[in-house]
């Protein structure tokens, strides 16, 4: 069981060791101590391992992750799990801005709140926030589900493409071209799937949520806007 103390070992050395892992490695459980807000911890892992990080992390933790399951026992700085491809990143505290930005796959769970721009430009990742999210979340979000048990800040889903947002609490305001939509059976299944994968069996029901997505008014040029150009 590899254990690294970031007071002793540099982040780059730990990341290099993680990058050297082969798909059939037996070193499947990693522990990282004293992160103390350092940046880029556990970025670019491509192996089915578990990584426990004991403390607060800085920017981009778990970025570009493939296959690995990272658990952060603390808060995360800007861009946690940005551009994740698959696997799991679980923040047990709060996350700063741009959590899960541009993520292509996998699941990001945030037990606390996420700040502004959560899920900005998400491209297939699923994000479950048990607290609330800040302003401008899911800006230009393209695919995947953003599920929020608490409230959402201003301009939710501005210029959204085909990602889906589920919010249980209040939405302060919707951004341009983002509208509330009725849930289809398929939407209900996807929401239930994220809740189940997030370990919320029965704690939050599908019927408690409202769904938001694109009105698709920005997809094509509209002749009525000709005078705007």
């Amino acid at each position, binding site marked *: 069981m590899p254990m690294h103390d970031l007071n002793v070992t540099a982040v780059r050395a730990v990341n290099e060791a993680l990058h050297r892992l082969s798909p059939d490695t037996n070193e499947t459980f990693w522990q990282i101590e004293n992160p103390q807000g350092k940046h880029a911890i556990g970025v670019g892992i491509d192996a089915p391992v578990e990584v426990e990080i004991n403390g607060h992390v800085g920017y981009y933790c778990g970025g570009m992750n493939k296959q690995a399951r990272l658990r952060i026992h603390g808060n995360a700085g800007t861009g946690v799990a940005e551009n994740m491809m698959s696997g799991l990143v679980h923040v047990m505290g*709060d996350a700063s801005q741009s959590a899960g930005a541009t993520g292509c796959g996998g699941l990001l769970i945030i037990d606390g709140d996420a700040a502004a721009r959560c899920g900005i430009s998400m491209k297939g990742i699923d994000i479950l926030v048990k607290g609330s999210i800040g302003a401008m979340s899911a800006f230009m979000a393209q695919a995947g589900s953003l599920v929020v048990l608490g409230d959402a800040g201003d301009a939710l889903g501005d210029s959204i493409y085909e990602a889906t947002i589920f919010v249980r609490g209040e939405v302060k305001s919707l951004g341009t071209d983002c509208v509330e939509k009725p849930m289809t059976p398929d939407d209900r299944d996807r929401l239930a799937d994220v809740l189940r994968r997030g370990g919320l069996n029965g704690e939050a029901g599908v019927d408690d949520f409202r769904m938001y997505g694109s009105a698709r008014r920005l997809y094509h040029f509209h002749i009525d806007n000709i005078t705007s150009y």
Partner: protein
Amino acid sequence: MCGIVGLFLKNKNLEPALGDLLSRMLVTMSARGPDSAGVAIYGAGDDDKVKLTLRVADGTCVDDLRSELFAVTSAFDISIRSSHIVLSISRSDAATVIHWLKTHKSDLDLVSVGENMEIYKEVGLPEHVVRVFGLSGMSGTHAIGHTRMATESAVTTNGAHPFSTGEDQCLVHNGSLSNHNAVRRTLRREGMAFSTENDSEVAAGYLTWRMRQGASLRDSLSSSLDDLDGFFTFVVGTRNGFAVLRDPIACKPAIMAESDDYVAFGSEYRALSVLPNIERARVFEPEPATVYAWEHP
């Protein structure tokens, strides 16, 4: 980039350690701003006295200054810290001495005026700057530090933060203002003086102007949301206060911690990680366009 740190102590027992804690916080932010660094520290003061922090040019002879000063004021104290000297004078002499300095001593820059506040700033890495000024040996109630990556004006000591435009008032800024020239013109008409072309000095001047009109620190910051355009995280100090404000889209990073012992600000969590018992403090990210202010009674 730029990095900001701030520490407002609630527990008096920590006051002797203020300079040491702030030094360590500032050094963690070196990568965010290697061009220059500065600190404002609020230490012991005396109701009847004013401290002038002056930056001296290379080759200035402090003994000569001392003898020249006797012609202007009879009672003063001078303490020297590297390129800065702190001149402590009686409040009744302040206007005369400041006028004399401005008209006769062009080789001295008046960095700050205050009952409690002293400001030290210099070009170079934070580690160098805190060492030459001996910051880690200083005590006080609250302090603000800044490490700069220059964007809107040159890498000079005058362009280094904190900026002070009023007695015991200072501001540090991460970001850039887009309407600073227009606001500076308006404030000059209102009688405010500016010594640089720097955007952050305008923000400091704006707050001084509002407080001079009678607004509280909190109200001054609230109205800056309407009048200042651009990206900013501001941390502001007054004689007994400490405040934080981010722009409405929270462009620049900010993280705070509050416990029974202190309120702390950092551009990144790394800056807070050096504080005692940080693991037991409430760590949170300040909301956009929301004024956070603390004051000692």
